[in-house]
């Protein structure tokens, strides 16, 4: 898989300690849920950000998706808490 840009917002961003990064996703990481699991193994800050994985929202190329969405050829993947705008 090609390089993918990951973006983090709100307390997910604060816990991970960065706003974005570019990674290469391993072949066997195929959907959003698997990516969250894989990221959680990269360090304490990721494990903390994703500790309640169910509450984490994700977007592929700026569109909301569920955790079972295949990553496909997304160029931009974002993780964030439930929205509180308006």
């Amino acid at each position, binding site marked *: 898989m090609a390089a993918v840009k990951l973006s983090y917002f709100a307390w997910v961003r604060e816990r991970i300690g960065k706003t974005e990064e570019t990674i290469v996703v391993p072949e066997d990481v195929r959907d959003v849920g698997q990516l969250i699991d894989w990221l959680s193994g990269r360090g304490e800050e990721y494990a903390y950000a994703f500790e309640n994985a169910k509450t984490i929202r994700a977007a592929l190329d700026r569109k909301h998706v569920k955790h079972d969405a295949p990553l496909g050829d997304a160029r931009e993947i974002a993780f964030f808490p439930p929205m*509180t*705008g308006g």
Partner: protein
Amino acid sequence: MSARIDVRIQREDFDVAAEIAALTKGRGDVGAVVTFTGLCRDESGALSALELEHYPGMAEEEIARVAQAAAQRWPILGAVAIHRFGKLAPGENIVLVATTSPHRAAAFEAAAFIMDFLKTRAPFWKKEHRRDGGVGDWVDAKEADDAALRRWGA
């Protein structure tokens, strides 16, 4: 009916009267304008500000999708949605939704629909700044906001 849809994400304040004028000027088919303005509350004096973070690009796109969905569901003539970001003090404007239609029901319902979906789908997050100097928590999403979607069949 083809609706004019205008979505803006900005730090600056907006002008409700100017937005109404832009939606109605020079046309004789608008019978109803509904505006919703969301303001920063002080939570009984506890808050000094709300800081609004957003996902640039996706915020515009997602709100535009919500407005388009409203335009497909109701015969609206136009819709404007403006959402601010940055640090906003109590009493300051946060969001504006304005809709126009020949008749009132469509304008009311489309505006309420856009706000309900904007609340739970537009990528914005609020952090509290407290008057006692502390930076408080991120505002939690409300169950009431999810419940509000159900009346639209979502």
